[in-house]
């Protein structure tokens, strides 16, 4: 299991476009990728769930990757968040 935390810098938070980018990237991996904000956690491969999480600017989220390619998944998700959010 690989886990990391991230604080959102984008003004709009995880809006439609970055949500699309995250899902697109997450579905490339066989590992499960779970995003957690506060109490709530969702499957980062599902766009509606991701958007319903309502992640905003300055929110702290954590990502947990678990499975065969968890390391690559973690690196890739970190990169995607750094570049887009």
């Amino acid at each position: 299991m690989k886990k990391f935390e991230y604080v959102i810098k984008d003004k709009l938070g995880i809006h439609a476009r970055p949500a699309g980018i995250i899902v697109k990237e997450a579905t490339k991996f066989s590992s499960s990728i779970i995003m957690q904000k506060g109490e709530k956690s969702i499957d980062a491969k599902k766009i509606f769930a991701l958007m319903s999480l309502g992640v905003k600017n300055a929110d702290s989220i954590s990502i947990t990757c678990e499975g065969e390619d968890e390391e690559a998944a973690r690196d890739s998700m970190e990169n995607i968040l750094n570049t887009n959010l």
Partner: protein
Amino acid sequence: MEILKGKSVFNGVAIGKILFLKKETGKIKRVKVENTTAEADRFELARQKAIEQLGELYEKALAEVGETSAMIFQVHQMMLEDQDYIDSIKNIIQTQKVNAEYAVGVTGDNFTKMFLNMDDDYMKERAADVKDITERIIRVFNNEDNKIETDEPVIIAAEDLAPSETIQLDKSKILSFITRKGSINSHTVILARSMNIPAIICIGDELKEEYDGKSAIIDGFTGTIYIDPDAKVKEEMLNKKKQEEERKALLLDFKGKENITKDGQKINIYANIGNSSDIGEVLKNDAGGIGLFRSEFLYLEKNTFPTEEEQFNVYKYVAESMAGKKVIIRTMDIGADKQIDYFNLPKEENPAMGYRAIRICLTQKDIFKTQLSAIYRASSYGNISIMFPMIISVEEVKEIKDIIKEVKKELNEIGIKYNQDIELGIMIETPAAVMISDLLAKEVDFFSIGTNDLTQYTIAIDRQNSKLDKFYDPHHLAILRMIQMVTENAHKNGIWVGICGELASDITLTEMFLKMGIDELSVASNLVLELRRKVRETDVEILKSLASQSVPSYL
């Protein structure tokens, strides 16, 4: 006859029938079904078809407007592939024994509510996306097409037009745009300008859907819309349209003529281009050269960095097509509002003041050197100049020159010929560059004033924000003084100066620019002849004797 008023954003008269782009679909009926498996299969087929349509739209949008705007179609695809969404629909079909349309509608409503209940205005707007995909599937069930179904050209009326909608429109069938909302910098406006058709925005709720199919006249000169015009208005407007057409025809008389004032002062009138396919318009309108070749499109059109060879071919083509006339290539201005995924630019709080343009080039020098090398190679095929965007210091210019030396050395080593003395210029688009223009002028061969960014940075107004429209004064004295200062500093140091921003085509400022002694104006191709006429009608000597016409001095 009814008369509506709005804000005109492009002149002209259009006469035709209104086509209101409606977004809602008809009522969905609830029908009992026995074979729920067959019904679920029906949904599956429609879903696949909708995904396929979105894929086509994505490709089309990618080619026409770029990755950022096209992304919305991929998001819609993902929504249709979302397991929770699919499960909900199939579940409703099976448990309630109902038709697929109804299940899609109910699920759509539920997901819409989820967004509407979020305490985030931006996410509330996502309800529109859910509505959009629901409607797409319903249309597939009904075998409906989203294209404009008309043989004759129409006036497009809408709430507002998003890039995702305009991409679907058949441009040859559009006479005019009229919208309830919009801002002067919205997509509708840009599209109308590029298509040369009248457009009126901010009409409000007066623009009713029931006008769909009615005859109307759009007067883009006054921002007036006549619904079911009476005979008198019709005649009046037909006359106005005729006059406008005559005026355009008259402009053709100015083809082949010099850009010279009555008292013999000359000025160069060049064209701005954003793509090599714009060359046709440049030649058709008899521009004296290309004053701003926005090279970004080479990067925006691709999914990965364009190679030196690809760039070289484009620059060579443009240089050859212009047959010895000047072609000023601006090195890539990526960043700010032009984002590209493969650049992997970090997210910024304030992109307009962030990592963009020359700042990227001086950091990721490989990208810069590839472009410079391609330009230098193409320089043997025509009259190419280079200019650099977003300059704020003399040091930057010196660093650029050092990089150019390296590029030249590498070309020498492999024995490629190029023009040794390409003219090098800089964009003056930051207040910093204005204030040190005396020092910068000693380092370069020319200045080109980019008034759009310069205005934004000087009066601290974000042009995308429609709330600020009333504060936005393109003729702000601060800007006019800056232009004068830059011109004086350029001429004192023996270099030429041009303007390539929107102000260049502002006919109300042409006299002032001539008086300042601006050497070049670079404008959209379709405005070249209009500007030439204005220049030929002006007498600078007479203007100079009128003190009221000058910019109040900054000294």
